[in-house]
C-alpha cells in the first residue's frame, strides 16, 4: 500500500469502516449534446483517499464536478450519504462536501484571510455572519496550512504554491469531511507539489477527511493515495490499490505509454518509468 513517505502518517491512521459516503451510479455526463462520461460507477468509502488519473480531456474534472453537484448528470445519479445529491439542498451539500475547482479565481485584492473566511459561508446566515466558531475555525485553518503570516496578503499576489495552500485552507475552513480537489498541484514545482500533497495527506490522516484528488503525476498519486481510479475517454478503466492499477498493461491501455513499473525506492509504491509513447 501507500503513504509511507519519510515522515508520512502511520498507515493505520484512518481506516475506512466501509461506509459509503459518495457514490456514482450509471453516470452519464454531457455538455449540451456531447457526452463526456458514460456509464460510470464509483463508490467512495468513509475515510478513504482516492486519486483519479487519466489523460487530458478524459473527463476527470467533469466527473469531479458531478460528484460535487456542480453538474447535473444526463443519466444516472450521485448519492451523498445514500441520498440523491440532486435532491439535496445546495447548502446541505456545501456543508458535507467541499470542492476545489481546477483553476479557481480569486477576485483581485481579496486577502488570504478573507478568502478562507468565505469558506464559512454555508454555515452563516444573515443574522449569524461571523460567529465565534467561524473565527476559531478560520484561524485554525490558516495556522494549520501555515498561512498565518500571509493572512493579510492579497491572494492574487501569492506564488502558485502559496495560492494553492490558501485555497486548501478555505476548503478546510468549510469544515466538510468530504473534500474533492481538482489538480491541486498544477503549476507547482516538485517540492511544492510534495508540500501540497503532504498537506492533503495530513488532512486525510490527521483530520480523518475523505479525500478525492485528481492528479497527473502517477508516481505521486501512487505514493499518496490509497486507491487509484483510472479513466480514459469518459470510461472508468480500472480502480483499486496503486499496485493493482498501475500496471504496464494499464499504462499502455490508458495513456498509450510504454513504461516499466518499478518499486519506488522511497515509498515502495509503484513507480512509472516511461519508455516511449505508443502510436494507436
Amino acid at each position: 500500500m501507500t503513504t509511507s513517505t519519510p515522515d508520512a502518517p502511520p498507515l493505520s491512521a484512518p481506516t475506512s469502516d466501509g461506509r459509503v459516503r459518495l457514490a456514482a451510479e450509471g453516470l452519464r455526463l454531457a455538455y449540451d449534446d456531447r457526452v463526456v462520461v458514460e456509464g460510470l460507477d464509483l463508490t467512495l468509502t468513509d475515510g478513504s483517499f482516492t486519486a483519479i488519473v487519466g489523460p487530458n480531456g478524459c473527463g476527470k474534472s467533469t466527473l469531479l464536478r458531478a460528484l460535487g453537484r456542480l453538474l447535473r448528470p444526463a443519466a444516472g445519479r450521485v448519492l451523498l450519504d445514500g441520498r440523491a445529491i440532486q435532491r439535496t439542498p445546495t447548502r446541505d451539500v456545501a456543508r458535507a462536501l467541499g470542492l476545489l475547482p481546477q483553476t479557481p479565481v480569486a477576485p483581485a485584492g481579496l486577502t488570504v484571510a478573507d478568502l478562507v473566511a468565505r469558506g464559512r459561508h454555508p454555515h452563516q446566515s444573515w443574522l449569524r455572519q461571523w460567529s465565534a466558531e467561524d473565527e476559531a475555525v478560520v484561524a485554525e485553518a490558516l495556522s494549520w496550512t501555515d498561512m498565518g503570516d500571509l493572512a493579510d496578503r492579497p491572494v492574487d499576489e501569492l506564488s502558485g504554491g502559496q495560492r494553492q495552500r490558501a485555497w486548501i485552507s478555505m476548503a478546510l475552513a468549510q469544515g466538510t469531511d468530504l473534500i474533492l480537489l481538482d489538480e491541486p498541484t498544477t503549476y507547482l514545482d516538485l517540492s511544492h507539489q510534495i508540500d501540497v500533497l503532504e498537506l492533503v495527506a495530513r488532512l486525510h490522516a490527521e483530520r480523518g477527511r475523505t479525500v478525492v484528488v485528481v492528479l497527473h503525476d502517477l508516481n505521486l498519486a501512487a505514493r499518496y493515495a490509497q486507491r487509484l481510479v483510472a479513466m480514459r475517454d469518459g470510461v472508468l478503466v480500472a480502480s483499486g490499490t496503486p499496485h493493482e492499477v498501475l500496471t504496464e498493461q494499464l499504462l499502455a491501455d490508458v495513456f498509450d505509454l510504454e513504461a516499466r513499473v518499478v518499486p519506488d525506492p522511497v515509498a515502495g509504491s509503484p513507480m512509472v518509468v516511461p519508455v516511449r509513447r505508443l502510436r494507436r
Partner: protein
Amino acid sequence: MTATVSTVRQTTPPEPGGRPAGRAVTLRLGPVSARFRWRAVVVPVVASAVVVVLGALSLGRGDYPIGVGDVLRTLAGAGEQGQRFIVLDLRAPRILVGVLVGAALGLAGALFQTFARNPLASPDVLGITQGASVGAVAAITLSGGSSAGELLGGLGVPLAALAGALGAGALLFTLAWRSGLDGFRLVLVGIALWSAGQALTDWLLTGAQIHDASAAYVWITGSLNARSWDQAEPLLLSLAVLVPLALAAGRVLGVLQFGDDTARGLGVRVARAQGAVVVVAVLLVATAVAAAGPIAFVALIVPQVAVRLTGGSRPPLLASALCGAALVTGADLLTRTVLPEALPVGILTAAVGAPYLLWLLVRGRRTPA
C-alpha cells in the same frame, strides 16, 4: 445576553498596490454576529455627513439666496410664505431627487460590477440607461405623430423612460443568459444593446421637430431642473423597497465574486442569486433614470471610487450608494451656483467622469469588481 466587541489589528500588506484591509470589528449579541472593517463603516458615515451638508447648502443657494437660519426655520415648520414655497416645494424635492438618484445609481453600479466581476459592467455601458433614453426620446418626439407615438406621449416621459430601461434590462438578461450569467458575455451583449439604442435615439432625433429635439437632448443629458415632489415621491417609495433588497444581497455577492463552481460549492444557488441581483439592479436604474434622466458615469465611477476608499476586493454597497448621493448632490450644487448658467447635472458628472475613468485605466493594474 452578552455583547462583545473586539477589534483585530490587521497589518497593512507590505506589497505596493495591495489595499490595506484595516481594522476589523466583530460584533456579537446572542445569536447575532457580524464583522465589519472600520473603513467600511467610516466611509458611509462621512459620505452621509457630506450629503447632509451639501443638501443643506443647496437648500439656501440659487436665484434667491436664503440664509441658513431661515432655511432651518422653514424646515422646522415656521418661516414666511415665499421662502416656504422656494425651500419646500422647489428646492427640497429637487435635492431629494438628486440624493436618491445618486444613491440608486451608485448602488446599481456596485451590484452590476460585483456579480459580473467586471468594473465596466455598469448600467451606462450595458445599455440600460440607453434603453431609457430611447423610451423618453420616443415619447418626446413621436407624440402627436403616429398612433404608437400617441400612446407613448400619453405615458409621459418618465414612464416611457422606465419602460425603455426595463425593456433593455429584460433584453440584456435574455440575450446574455445561458444557464447563468457570464460577466464577459453580459458586457458584450450590453455594448451591442447600447449601440442599438444609440442608433435608435439618433434616428428619432433626426426626424424630430427642432424644439422636441432640444427638449430630448436636455433629457438625455440627465437633469434635475424642475424636479418636484411628483418625481421625488415615487422614487422614495421604490427605493424604500429596493435598497434593503440590494443590501441584503451583500452577503451572497461576496461569494458570487468567485467563479460559478466555487460559489455553488459554497452553497449558493448561482443562477437564482444572479437573476435576483440583476432584477434589483435594473429596477434601481430604471426608477432613477425615469426621475432624472441618465446622469452619466455615476454608476460606473462611484463604485470604483468607493472601493478605493473602503479597501477590500469589491465595491461596498452602502458606501457606493452614499458616495453616489454625495456626487450627484455636489454636482447639482455646483451647476446651480458656481457655474455661469444652469447646466444639466449630467454634463458635469460626465466631465468629471470621463477623465477619471481614463486615469483609472492608465494607472490601474488593479480593477476590483
